[in-house]
């Protein structure tokens, strides 16, 4: 599956980037959306790994997705499986884990798989935006 830089397709009025938030709790998706929209990001939502995979493979998302923010504990395809899928099929999309469970083993294993950040809820808006901004830089560097 080919990948293109999102910048390639950006026209006037473009956002700072497109982020897919995967979490089974609608409340979490809502506040993450609120937090990131303030920083000019375009936010997509999915309620589990299965929906996330559907979303990224739908239409132009495949080409325009910049960052994945993913929970671990979810129904259907869980975070671990979804992240493995994304790392294998979309290696240039940086993945940020946003989880309710501070688990050092899980964090280590995730970072080894190339996840760029492991954030434990509750995370402050500023910290989340910084993490996303850093991931965006990596995303752009990867395309140089």
């Amino acid at each position, binding site marked *: 599956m080919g990948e293109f830089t999102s910048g390639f397709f950006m026209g006037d009025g473009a956002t700072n980037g497109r982020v897919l938030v995967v979490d089974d709790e609608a*409340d979490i998706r809502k*506040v993450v959306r*609120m937090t990131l929209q303030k920083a000019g990001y375009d936010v997509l939502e999915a309620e589990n790994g299965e929906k996330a995979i559907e979303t990224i493979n739908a239409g132009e998302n495949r080409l325009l997705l910049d960052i994945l923010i993913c929970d671990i*504990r979810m129904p259907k395809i*869980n975070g671990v499986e979804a992240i493995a899928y994304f790392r294998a099929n979309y290696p240039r999309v940086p993945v940020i884990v946003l989880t309710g*469970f501070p*688990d050092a083993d899980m964090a280590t294993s995730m970072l080894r798989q190339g996840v760029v950040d492991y954030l434990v*809820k509750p995370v402050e*808006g500023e910290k989340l935006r910084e993490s996303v901004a850093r991931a965006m830089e990596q995303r752009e560097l990867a395309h140089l």
Partner: protein
Amino acid sequence: MQPVTDSSVVSKVVPTRVAILGAGRGGTALLDLLHLIPSIEIVGISDRDPGAPGLVRAKNLRIPVTGRIEELVYNDGVNLIMDVTGDPDVERFVQLHKRPETEILSGSAARVLWELVRHEANLQAELFHAEKLAGIGSFAAGIAHDINNPLQLIMGLAENLAEETDLKAVHEQAREIIEAVRRTSAISRDLTQYARKTSARDETIVLLNNRLDEALKIARYAVSFHDITVHKAYKESAAARGNPDEVLHLLVNLITNAVQAMEQGGGTLTLATEQSAGAVTLQITDTGCGIGPAVLQQLFEPFFTTKAPGKGTGLGLYNVKTIVSKMRGKIDVESGVGKGTTFRIRFPSVTENET
């Protein structure tokens, strides 16, 4: 399907027919233990004080009660008198009037025995508690999830409120924060209630449907219910006599096991209660991996576990069986490998007890 019941003791022994004199702490402790032993029949218990705690307990256990000690001493169905009154007059009376073939256990011998029995009961309570606390260790991920998600919502909304100018949105989000705080505080309330040590003597009428719902809530901390459909088939006002905390403990164990059996690929958890003449039945059914015949035989044995080291105490189902026995119930299991498992518990019905 492989049915297995707990009636492993097939007794051909002539029952020891016991009369208990004294229904204070000693008599109550003896009652609690002796009524569990199939080869012992308690003919009756007596105390001159009609308010003695053991008399109430005996009524609940459907054991005959009398205020006249003489009745039991003369009773020719009795072959052992246990005198825990500590009253020298009673002791003399029993020595003089008992039938020659009846044996007596009295004085310090009886006291030593009931101290042993009480010690045993305390150990059992400790065991219940230790196993429950060990189980709570596995709640960490569930608790973290259930606390940190609302905290994230609260954090996000509060950060937004700091800048929000639309008064309507401010009011709406403030309400959402209050609601999230309420949800979160329910978690510590549920768990502290569950974790507390139960007093073994608190017997009352236990509403089984209510306990099942409560157990479902607690079990969600221990195991993930993702991809599991819960089906409830409750008979209205199904009830048994027992300790509500112990029943909750028992149900959390069974529900947790059922969900763990469906870890691969999900399934359906069915919780059912039924009431028939003289009995109330409670069933917990999963459509999980099932239990092989070899494991089925050892299921209720203490320290038997199929879980990885550190994951199970091997005391869960043993304690389940002990609690069921205490409530004069029976538990049996039906399981098919690859099909699923049903735990069925029958308790004596409450209405019969009450009369």
